[in-house]
C-alpha cells in the first residue's frame, strides 16, 4: 500500500501554494538570514558582519546569541555593554515572537535536519532511538554547569549551529573539511539513528530558545479543531508533535485551541499540511477571547466537542 505523506491531501484539496506557503516562506527566510551574512564574504556587499554568535548589521545593529552571553557570565567573565545590548535585543525579540522561531526560521542546522526528516518520511524509516524531550533541558543544564566550572563558553566547543554558520560565512564549508563530516554526521544521526533526534530532543540551543519563548505572543492556534478528521498529517509533519495534542484534542479538558508549549517552533507546517485548514497563526490573546466566546455561546469545537 502506498503510504500517505503529510501534505498530499492538502495539496489535492487546496492546491500547491496553500499546502506549501509556510514552508516556502520559511525556506526563503532561512536563505534571507544566511544571505545577510554571506553577501559580504561572497560579493563584497556588507550587510551583516560576524556570525550568529554575535553580529553587527549595517554598522549599527548589534545582535548577540543570549545563550553565549549567559554562559560567559556564568563563567565569571564580564562582557562589554554592546554585547549585552545585543543579547537583550535578541532575547526580547524571541520572547515576543516565540523563541524557537530561531530554530525553524533562522538556524542553518534546520536545513540539515529537515532534509533528514524529509528523506526519512519518504523512506518510511522506523522511529529509531527515542530520547526524552526533556533531554535537551538536561543537556542545557549540563552545559551551563560546565561553563561555570571550567570558566569557558562550554557549548561553543561543540556547537554545530555556530560551526556550520562559521563554515558558511568563513568558507570552511566550500572546501573538503571536517565541517562537512559534522554536517553529514548530523544528517545521518537524524536519518538513521533517531527521528528528529538533534533539533527535537538534544540541542541545548533549541532548549534555551524554547524557554525564552514560553510566554510569546505569536502562536499557532487549532482554531478550526472541530473540523479535524484525525488524518494525523499535522502530527507527521510537526517536528515537535507533542505540542499539538493539548491544542487540537484538549477541548474536553478545557485546553487550547492555542498551542502554548514553548517547544513549538512556529514553523507553520501544520497549517500547510492540514486538509481541513484547522490551524492558523494567532496572537496569544486570542486564547482568552475564544474561551470567553465559547463559554457564552456556540463557538466552534469547544462546545461541540464538549457536547
Amino acid at each position, binding site marked *: 500500500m502506498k503510504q500517505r505523506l503529510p501534505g498530499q491531501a492538502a495539496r489535492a484539496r487546496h492546491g500547491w501554494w496553500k499546502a506549501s506557503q509556510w514552508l516556502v516562506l520559511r525556506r526563503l527566510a532561512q536563505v534571507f538570514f544566511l544571505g545577510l551574512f554571506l553577501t559580504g564574504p561572497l560579493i563584497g556587499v556588507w550587510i551583516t558582519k560576524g556570525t550568529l*554568535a*554575535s553580529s*553587527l548589521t549595517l554598522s549599527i545593529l548589534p545582535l548577540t546569541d543570549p545563550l553565549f552571553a549567559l554562559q560567559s557570565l556564568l563563567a565569571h567573565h*564580564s562582557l562589554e555593554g554592546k554585547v549585552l545590548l545585543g543579547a537583550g535585543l535578541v532575547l526580547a525579540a524571541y520572547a515576543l515572537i516565540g523563541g524557537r522561531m530561531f530554530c525553524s526560521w533562522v538556524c542553518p542546522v534546520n536545513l540539515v535536519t529537515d532534509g533528514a526528516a524529509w528523506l526519512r518520511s519518504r523512506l518510511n524509516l522506523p522511529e529509531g532511538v527515542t530520547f526524552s524531550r526533556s533531554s535537551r533541558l*538536561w543537556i542545557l543544564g549540563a552545559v551551563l554547569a560546565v561553563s561555570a566550572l571550567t570558566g*569557558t563558553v562550554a557549548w561553543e566547543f561543540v556547537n554545530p549551529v555556530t560551526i556550520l554558520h562559521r563554515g558558511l560565512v568563513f568558507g570552511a564549508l566550500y572546501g573538503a573539511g571536517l565541517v562537512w563530516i559534522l554536517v553529514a554526521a548530523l544528517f545521518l544521526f537524524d536519518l538513521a539513528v533517531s527521528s528528529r533526534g538533534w533539533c527535537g530532543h538534544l540541542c541545548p540551543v533549541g532548549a534555551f530558545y524554547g524557554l525564552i519563548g514560553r510566554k510569546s505572543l505569536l502562536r499557532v492556534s487549532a482554531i478550526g479543531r472541530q473540523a479535524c478528521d484525525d488524518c494525523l498529517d499535522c502530527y507527521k509533519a510537526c517536528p515537535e508533535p507533542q505540542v499539538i495534542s493539548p491544542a487540537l484534542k484538549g477541548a474536553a479538558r478545557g485546553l487550547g485551541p492555542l498551542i502554548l*508549549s514553548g517547544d513549538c517552533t512556529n514553523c507553520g507546517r501544520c497549517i500547510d499540511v492540514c486538509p481541513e485548514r484547522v490551524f492558523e497563526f494567532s496572537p496569544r490573546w486570542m486564547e482568552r477571547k475564544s474561551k470567553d466566546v465559547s463559554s457564552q455561546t456556540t463557538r466552534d469545537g469547544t462546545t461541540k466537542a464538549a457536547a
Partner: protein
Amino acid sequence: MVEPSSPLETSRRDFLAATARTACAAGFFGTALGLWIGQARALPASTLRPPGALAEDDFLGTCARCGLCVQDCPYKTLKLAEPGSGPTLGTPYFEARKIPCEMCSDIPCVAACPTGALDKSLKDISKSKMGVAVLVGHETCLNFLGLRCDICYRDCPLMGTAITLERSHNLRTGKHAMFIPTVHTEACTGCGKCEKSCPLEEAAIKVLPPKLALGVLGSHYRLGWEEKEKKGSALIEGTIDLPDRGYSPGEPVPPSPERNSQGGFKEFRP
C-alpha cells in the same frame, strides 16, 4: 505547564526512574564535555592571539567566536579556528610564519570586538603583546654563522628598539665580528614580521607566547647592584675590603683585545 494527554498514567516510580536515567546521561555528557574542553582549550605555540587579547583563560570565557575581528582585519592575518585547525574551535588566531600582524595604528580588530575579549584599553598598537620573538636557532641563524643577513632586524616595525644587532667577537674565525639579532622583550609586540621574513627553511627567530618565551625571576630576588644604587651606598656597612690577589684595578684586563685606529680589532694570527 500543559502536558499531553496520555492513555497511561505514569507512575511515580517510573517517573523518578526516567528522571534519574536522564540525569545520569546528562551528567555523563557534562563530564565528557568538561574533559573535551580540557583537551581543546590548548593553544599551540605556533599560533598567536590578536592584539589586545585577554589572558588565554579569560579570552576563552569572553570571546563569542563571532569573527568580527577576522572580517575587519585588512591583511587577512586573522583566521577563525575551524574543526581540526589547532587552537580552540571558533576562536581567532594568526600564524606569524604565514601572515604576520601588520600592526595597524587604528587596531580595527580590537575596535570590532563586541565582547571585550580584545581589550579596548589597548590604544597604541606598539604596546600590544601578542607574543615575544625569540631567536631560537643559535646554530642556524645566518648572523650567528657570521653572515650579515639582518633581515629580521630590518623587517622589525620597531627596528632598533625591539630588535637590535649586538656586536660580538667571532670566535670561530677569531678575526671577524658577529652581529647578533637581539630581542628586547619589553618592546617586542609579537607581530611576527621577523619570523615571517627569516629566510631559512624553518625560521630561526620565532614568536612564542610570552609564558613560553620569558624567564621570570623569583619574586624574592634582589639585584645587588640595583639595590646598592637605590640606597646610594654599600648595602652592608663596615665590611673590610681586602685586596684581591693578582689583580689591581688600575691595570688593563689581560684578555681584552687591542683596537686599531679604525676602532676594529687587531689582526689575529694563531
